[in-house]
């Protein structure tokens, strides 16, 4: 990549930083260049977030329909997957999967709910009184 080809597009790095890229200068030698961003990757990032938002909305509806428990909703909201949530709660993946069933979730002890509340940084009440 030549220095004059380094893209300077707007995006998520605005008001944060410019990023270092390695580019060839006029003499054909490498040097550091600063870029504000590149549209090609910005679109990829935007799409990824759109997909996350879609899944969060879908999961919210599933909770309201009584198909899954709020554990699943908050997991998606926090962009977590099972290994990450397992790390934050200390539960095993299979336990979390069970806790995602509304029938099992209803019987969870306060202690277990508290662990989820801490992992998601919400109150136990937010978990048990799921609102629209």
């Amino acid at each position, binding site marked *: *990549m030549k220095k004059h080809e*380094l893209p300077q597009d707007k995006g*998520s*790095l605005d*008001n*944060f*930083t*410019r*990023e*270092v*890229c*390695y*580019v*060839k200068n006029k003499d054909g*030698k*490498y040097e*550091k260049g*600063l*870029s504000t961003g*590149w*549209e*090609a*990757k910005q*679109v*990829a*990032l935007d*799409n*990824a*977030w759109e*997909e996350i938002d879609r899944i969060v909305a879908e999961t919210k509806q599933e909770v309201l329909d009584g198909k899954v428990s709020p554990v699943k909703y908050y997991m998606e909201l*926090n*962009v*977590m*997957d099972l*290994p*990450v949530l*397992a*790390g*934050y709660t200390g539960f095993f993946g299979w336990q979390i999967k069970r806790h995602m069933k509304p029938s099992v979730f209803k019987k969870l002890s306060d202690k277990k709910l508290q662990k989820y509340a801490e992992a998601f940084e919400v109150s136990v009440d937010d978990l048990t009184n799921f609102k629209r």
Partner: protein
Amino acid sequence: MENFKHIQTAHCENGVTVNLLQRKGLDFFNEPLAFGIGSGLFYIHIPFLKINKGPAISFRSMPGAIFKRTCKVLDIDVVHKKFRSKEEAECFLNEQVDIGNPVGCQVGVFHLMYFPKAYRFHFNAHNLIVYDRQDDNYLVSDPIMEVTTSVTREELEKVRFAKGPFAPKGHIYYPEKVGDVSDELLRKAIVKGINHNVRDMLYIPSNRTGVRGINYTASQIRKWRAKHGEKKAGLFLGQIVRMQEEIGTGGGGFRFLYAAFLEQAAERLSDDRLIKISEKITQSGDLWRDSALQMAGIYKGRITSQKDFEHSADILNEISALEKEAFKELKSFKLKY
């Protein structure tokens, strides 16, 4: 601390390595050297692991490898510590910064509030330097940023004890004793770094790694559209582009950074053949950028036929062949130090 010099780099771990080694007297040290000596270049289509049900791909070696390998070949003693207890972790950090010893810390970025929201995923292998503290704040030099910043005490504890894959467990590290790095030792380190990279790119017995890994990804891309539909397949391509071009790579999946290293290596080893290889890796970086543009056309919904997916895959096959040729040549040089 007075006169702390912030250094911005493309990649966080390179940045921490360069900054801490410069402080210990290696004035000449720079990012391409750290990346090349630490043999940071790689390619892996990670088996079994899925991210958002899509491909998990990495263009660099394991987190922590660059600092470790660089210090090892330069005969530098390093201190690495992980902690069970948050109190101990904080205590150790305070001791170091209070005696004026800036340290590298591994952190998760999900709770790192100075990062823009769009970048805060559960990625636990980010690296930064803590160089001082004031009241309830720590002063931070994050190598990917243009300027220094700060975090609160609670925030730092949270990111140092982020959970999930690659959980940092308070990981703190710094070079302790840096001896005299002679020209000879540096040349040896450069050659070792190159040889290690030749091995990683050509000879790991797996079709998911190195130049063969790139072909593996290409073969997957050819199947995605029929298997997952246009939208999902497009999201998967977006995921590749993000891993490849996201902040921290120096562009073109670290290839430009490696080409910059080979340019320096040619000079340090007085070996012009390396310039030719540097140019090949540059060409490869440019092709990676082309493939990103092609893939972007797909996930923007502009071009979505099977032919367009095939074209993306074709570019990756071309890259694989080019990198294979480059690393084979590097091997054939039988570099001496």
